[in-house]
């Protein structure tokens, strides 16, 4: 199937933390997606995949961007004037919520939380979310997740002592030490190393669970 290309433009940037922001884009008519899917954003010969962080019925498209010094696209998005035109194609991917009798456990590091934001902003609730970040200031979307999750755990890898209501350590530490052995539906979005480590933990500690992954790079 041929990719359909859409025209859009940057409408706004909303700061989430010192180095993370939401880029809000115009939503062209005819573009439909399911929460958890991503688009391929194109501009000036560059292209990059981003998960959408808005609900499918919202009037705009929202991307969650971490500004990385060496990241050409994130640098572009952080500096380009509001109103700049972009193109994109999509939606891509199958990282969507699949309801089942098993409790869902979402695991994200950094802006890998974006597809779970889209799910929480739509009809998905009563999930466990482990969000791995370095510092407490990076647990953006905390109020959304506190209202929609059954259990929302911010895993702080750098800060010591941990803030109240957070877990000090990586998401893998929480899974190995805190999450009760059971059969779950695991949804993993983050860097390859996290996905590997969590998948192995699932094999060892949570057999017969389902694992759905989205590599975030």
């Amino acid at each position, binding site marked *: 199937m041929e990719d359909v290309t859409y025209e859009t433009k940057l409408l706004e940037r909303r700061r989430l933390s010192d180095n993370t922001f939401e880029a809000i884009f115009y939503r062209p008519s005819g573009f439909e997606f399911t929460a958890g899917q991503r688009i391929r954003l194109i501009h000036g010969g560059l292209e990059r995949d981003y998960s959408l962080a808005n609900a499918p019925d919202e009037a705009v498209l929202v991307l969650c961007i971490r500004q990385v010094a060496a990241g050409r696209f994130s640098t572009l998005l952080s500096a380009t004037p509001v109103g700049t035109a972009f193109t994109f194609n999509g939606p891509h991917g*199958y990282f969507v919520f*699949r309801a089942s009798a098993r409790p869902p456990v979402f695991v994200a590091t950094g802006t890998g939380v974006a597809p779970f934001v889209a799910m929480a902003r739509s009809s998905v609730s009563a999930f466990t979310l482990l969000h791995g970040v370095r510092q407490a200031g990076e647990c953006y979307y905390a109020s959304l997740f506190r209202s929609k999750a059954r259990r929302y755990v911010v895993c702080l890898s750098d800060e010591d002592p941990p803030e109240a209501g957070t877990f000090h350590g990586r998401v893998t530490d929480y899974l190995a030490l805190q999450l009760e052995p059971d059969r779950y*539906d695991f949804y993993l979005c983050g860097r*390859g190393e996290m996905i*590997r480590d969590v*998948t192995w933990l699932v*094999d060892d500690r949570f057999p017969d669970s389902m*694992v*759905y992954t989205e590599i975030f*790079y």
Partner: protein
Amino acid sequence: MKIYTGSGDRGKTSLFSGERVAKNNLRTEAYGDLDELNSCLGALTAALEESHESIAEIRQIQSDLFHIGACLATTPGSPSAAALEPFDEQKSLYLETAIDRMDQNLPPLKGFILPGGRMPAALAHVARTVCRRAERHTVGLSEDKTTGQTPDAYQAVLVYLNRLSDYLFVLARYCNHLAGEADILWKK
């Protein structure tokens, strides 16, 4: 994009439907055969003249095999199965049309033939045998009683693979015929 995570380094893989299974699981064997078959077809198209009439057909078959691979990587009845478009048995019909089209230009088959001849024909025979293996593993999957699947869960795929094997046999003969190469008949 970085394509590796290493999560399969300990011999397990994740199905499209989310289960973690051993890489020698019946299901992974079956869609692995399709991957191998698809690669054989890629080699076959590389060996054909760019203008060969069968290239577009083979590319369509390669796309169909991707679709079948996704179906085989999904446990029937799982929540993920609903996200997949079912494989349509009607897709076998264009294979039958192609078989009939090639066959009417071929001399009658006079006995068993040995796989071989020109390179495209030899590669079509290799693809045919891999296709038969994919079919055998799919039969194994269809007889698996542990998944609670309906008996006809893979019927459309079985029809397609059976027809594709026939297509590849005829295509092998057709490639040789177009190149002026006669069938190599089996002699006792």
